[in-house]
């Protein structure tokens, strides 16, 4: 481990502002947001629809360039998509013509990793996300929860340091959602990743995260940076403790 590297936050967002401009005019999606993220932290970002959450993920993943300000990963500015960042999109975003296994090997194929090696890595992750036996299935034959597991496995296959998830469980029912959240925590602990996850479910955010960022809409502003000091591992019942409820209350007020 490089000790110098470890003192510096993994991610630094400095005075980030994003304005979308097209023929119809311009729209300020993010006003001016600054925050930094330590290694191996689990961060959730909450905010109502249209508060620029997806925009933030697109910036952090390098898919979109900031209008003002800058984002640094490991001290170097993010200008385009780069190695070491895994993304899970809101829709699972799988290729319908590829099997589960092949969808997961895709990132490695693009990096020209020999196919045998890619497959054995993919199989490892299939096991991690609990999809053993479904290697050769096509996306069209899987449930929503399973699709997201594939997407998560795919984002992990390059062993990224930073994992970005944009409302990965948004399309799932409440029960599956809770289950997937617990799975994600398990994976996070097993793999020692830094996670930034978008959600508009405040309770989910508090349950999962070390720290929750609340963004207000139009334009997106950072309203609250809340540390969640609840003990881990957390259990479903914890959601009803006064501490937990207090935290969700604070976040709700910040957003409204």
């Amino acid at each position: 481990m490089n000790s110098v590297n470890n003192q510096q936050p993994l991610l630094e967002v400095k005075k980030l502002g994003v304005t979308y401009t097209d023929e119809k005019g311009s729209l300020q999606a993010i006003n001016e947001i600054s925050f930094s993220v330590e290694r191996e932290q689990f961060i959730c970002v909450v905010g109502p629809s249209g508060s620029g959450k997806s925009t933030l993920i697109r910036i952090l993943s390098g898919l979109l360039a900031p209008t003002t300000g800058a984002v640094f990963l490991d001290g170097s500015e993010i200008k385009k998509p780069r190695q070491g960042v895994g993304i899970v999109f809101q829709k699972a975003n799988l290729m319908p013509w590829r099997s589960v296994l092949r969808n997961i090997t895709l990132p490695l194929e693009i990096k020209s990793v020999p196919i045998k090696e890619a497959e054995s890595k993919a199989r490892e992750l299939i096991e991690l996300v609990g999809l053993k036996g479904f290697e050769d299935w096509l996306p069209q034959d899987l449930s929503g929860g399973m699709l997201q597991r594939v997407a998560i496995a795919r984002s992990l296959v390059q062993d990224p340091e930073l994992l970005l998830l944009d409302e990965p469980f948004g399309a799932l029912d409440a029960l599956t959602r809770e289950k997937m959240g617990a799975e994600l925590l398990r994976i996070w602990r097993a793999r020692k990743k830094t996670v930034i996850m978008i959600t508009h479910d405040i309770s989910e955010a508090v349950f999962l995260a070390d720290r929750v960022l609340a963004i207000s809409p139009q334009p997106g502003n950072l309203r609250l940076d809340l540390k969640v000091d609840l003990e881990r591992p957390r259990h479903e019942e914890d959601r009803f403790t006064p501490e937990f409820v207090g935290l969700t209350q604070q976040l709700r007020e910040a957003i409204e």
Partner: protein
Amino acid sequence: MKVILKFLKKVGFIILSLAVGLILWQAFTTYSDIPSFIFPTPFDVWEKFLSVARDGSLLFHTLVTLQEVLLGLTLGLGAATLTGYLLAKSRTVERVLSPYIVASQSIPIVAIAPLLVIWLGPGIFSKILTSALIVFFPVLVNTIVGIRSVPVELYELMRSLQANHWQRIIKLEIPAALPVFLGGLRIGATLAVIGAVVGEFVGADKGLGFLVNVGRGLYDTSLVFVSVFTLVILALGLYGSVVFLESRLLSWKKRE
């Protein structure tokens, strides 16, 4: 076992339908007063078939037409795929080229075929070109529609995985556009036969279209029938090949 039974049933129906057709045809020719040089009996046609098959002329002319069709199809396909890709990718190219493309579609191929024969001579090239021209449009349209139908999210995925141009084309655009593209090819394959025959009609000294013309001139309607049937089989063969290709390449797609 089930599959074999199903297949036999299908073949059985085809044979039955052909047999009924032949009987009706025979009945029509025996009970009407139409002389057989105007409308031949199935038996006349069979006799003619045997004679042209034996002296090798049928095979010769079939191979000529097949060659024109295959070369025309390849040329049309190649040109349409390349142009279609460029059109789908660039609004500017689309704006510049589309008036010509649309205009060219309103000119019937029979009207330009004589010009092509004048320019390229009565040899094989004018037929290849008429065939290619008629193939061009449906394949072009389907290429454009196919490429435009590639989901934006998958482009984003490829970008986030740092795929280069070739990887994007090979791993995303080709497989995603393939179903629509093959639909165009299916139409193109049968049109290619028509294109070649139109070219042969205008001026040729070999090929099945030429044979039809000879039969017409000699009032040898049996010869016309033999040639037309051969053309139908040729077109069906090509169509079948594309369908076969579809079933191999698109096995991931659920059949309705």
